């Protein structure tokens, strides 16, 4: 993109934002309850939130780089950067966040049929259908391909039985994308299919898991003779692991970005601390400086990998690095926030709000979407070529 066309796009966008972004949506959206997740049962927290989503969806700005025919704005990588810069400039909230956008969307764009894309992507872009992820199973832990949930071939559908765990917000999701073993005799990675399933149908139940942070962002999800029509497979039968791996690299980048504290606002940790602490002690200050340096450098690394990759292709094996570095940093950041908060941070809903809950929540960052240990092993083997 030439400088000229970039400047034109920026001017146009700026005018649109000025006219269309409601004032209430210009607060950075840093808190958990400012997020718009969408979905059939979504209750907008304000008229402004609804309006903002609708206006963005109409322009394709909920998924700016997706093709226009699938609900996106078809922006180039360069334009996308401008888009984020301008959004940040007016402190605009993200109009919509969802696992459909971060995870299923990229997988469908890569592996889905044209019909599937037309069917599933626009509702994601408009925030009409909320998705959740059915990968992990009880006891499987890091061994994600250890899928026991089985799908029996019944001609026009699979009959699915089994249990998933750590299904994020499954209790609020409309649909689930799940790994199901459709060939029990094949080698571990070769008998899995990637299926899409309506959660309202019979045979699908879900139960929230209470976490140490006091909230329940994860669920257990049970399949009991659930029927999944054959057309709801993404990619090839028994080759679902390829889809899963592809999606995982996107998930890692997403977690990494959130982890590095790079979404929304981007204020320096030290500056945030300085808001409430009169004078930082040497330990806190030294740690905050290191954290800030790491956050900036990790943020630049995310951008670098996005720049390097083809649109929508992700960072491949290096996503393991992004995920590892981003989440470990985020844990460290929240340790410092707790330290800065002192005894005020030790209460649930105390003077610092949910600071303790947020801190505890981050401890899952280095577990979900592949543990830090798995990430390091991926780097060791696939990037460095060290023997297994």
């Amino acid at each position, binding site marked *: 993109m030439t400088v000229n066309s970039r400047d034109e796009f920026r001017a146009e966008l700026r005018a649109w934002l000025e006219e269309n972004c409601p004032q209430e949506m210009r607060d950075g959206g840093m808190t958990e309850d400012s997020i718009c997740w969408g979905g059939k049962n979504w209750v907008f927290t304000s008229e402004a939130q609804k309006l903002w989503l609708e206006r963005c969806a109409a322009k394709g700005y909920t998924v700016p780089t997706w093709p226009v025919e699938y609900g996106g704005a078809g922006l180039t990588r360069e334009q996308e950067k401008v888009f984020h810069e301008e959004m940040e400039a007016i402190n605009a909230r993200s109009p919509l966040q969802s696992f459909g956008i971060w995870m299923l969307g990229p997988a469908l764009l890569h592996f889905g049929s044209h019909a599937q894309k037309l069917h599933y992507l626009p509702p994601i872009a408009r925030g009409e259908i909320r998705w959740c992820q059915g990968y992990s199973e009880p006891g499987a832990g890091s061994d994600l391909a250890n899928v026991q949930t089985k799908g029996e071939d019944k001609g026009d559908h699979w009959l699915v039985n089994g249990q998933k*765990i750590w299904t994020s917000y499954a209790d609020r999701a409309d649909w689930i994308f799940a790994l199901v073993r459709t060939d029990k005799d094949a080698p571990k990675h070769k008998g899995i299919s990637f299926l899409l399933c309506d959660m309202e149908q019979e045979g699908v139940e879900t139960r929230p898991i*209470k976490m*140490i942070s006091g909230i329940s962002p994860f669920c257990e999800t049970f399949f009991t003779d659930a029927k999944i029509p054959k057309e709801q497979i993404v990619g090839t039968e028994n080759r679902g692991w390829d889809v899963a791996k592809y999606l995982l690299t996107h998930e890692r980048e997403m977690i990494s970005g959130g982890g590095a504290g790079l979404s929304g606002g981007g204020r320096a940790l030290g500056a945030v601390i300085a808001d409430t602490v009169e004078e930082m002690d040497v330990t806190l200050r030294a740690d905050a400086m290191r954290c800030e340096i790491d956050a900036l450098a990790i943020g630049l690394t995310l951008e670098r990998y996005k720049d390097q990759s083809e649109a929508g292709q992700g960072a491949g094996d290096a996503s393991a690095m992004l995920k590892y570095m981003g989440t470990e940093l985020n844990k460290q950041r929240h340790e410092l926030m707790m*330290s800065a908060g002192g*005894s005020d941070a030790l209460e649930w809903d105390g003077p610092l709000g949910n600071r303790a809950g947020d801190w505890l929540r981050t*401890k*899952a960052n*280095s*577990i979900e979407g592949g543990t830090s240990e798995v990430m390091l092993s991926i780097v060791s083997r696939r990037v460095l070529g060290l023997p297994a």
Partner: protein
Amino acid sequence: MSEEETMLADMARGFLDGAAPVSKFRQMRDAGETFDRALWKEMADMGWAGVLVPEDAGGSDMGFAAANIIAREMGKTLAVSPFLSSAVIAATALKHVSDTRARDALAKIAAGDMTYALAVDEGVKFDPEGTAMEAKADGNGFRLNGKKQFVVDGALADRLLVLARTENGLTLFDIPADRAGIERNASNMIDARDVARINFDNVEATGGDVLGAVDNAMDVLKPALQAGQAALAAEMSGLSAGAFGMTVEYLKERKQFGIEIGRFQALQHRAAHLWCEIEVTASAILNAGRKLDDDPENAGLAVSLAKARATDTAKLAVIEGVQMHGGIGMTDAFDMGFYMKRARVGAEWLGDYSYHAEKVAAARGF
């Protein structure tokens, strides 16, 4: 540890495993309870409430090293009791006053019949010297006005030790918690313990309520704080050992990719490193107890060393504990989170890592 100390530790462990295991803490947490008076009475019967109380006042007078041993065992099972506030901090303060009233109070503490809480903090960090709360002279007595926070055991304690600023310094008051003008609000703590924010609205105090001398709180408070810091460090070292024990067991049992995760060398080395840290911290705790018993005037370095190390080690122990347990460690149904939350509260109480690191540096000449 001496043979006697080992016996005390074994006895304490035996009692706590039966009477106050982690499951007991879970019950209390679920029920919203922060004090089990019957359990405290049992502890008193074993001599724990009077661990620092002279024998002629009904105590067991076992000393600071023994108090640390008990606190350490309590840390392992997350036992809830007013041990630190009453048996360690208040008892030490009261022992530094030689009047009859203090003696009576010590006897009641030892019997488990009276509990204390220490009200020092006013901001988010421990800073006794920075106390702003005012105790204004009023006739023969004082009027206390101000706010305290992070008063551990403060919502349910019978009496409060309150640090306030008087004309020429700081003064420590020993007053009943239900005195007129005192308003206590229980804080909803992440570790589910009794902590309060307390408002003092023109609270009356007499000269007799002063513990020690007016304007000279530190004569009495300093040894009490050091005793409390050491015992808290001991509790945190026990907490680290408890969390670590669970983790090592899990490493031996849990299988991933077909083998026990304890066979993965990266986890082995991290677990080994953590054990080393725990061992080294244990030495600092032991030393603090000895020093408080043998040479209390010069125990400051030993105590701050213990608290700083204990804070750091506990943080590592619970972070590794959660991470090595994976998703299950993040669930409320599993106990590891309790250790993590308690470690965080212990990190802040009576001075955080940085506070004590500065004390160490000062004592070591930089």
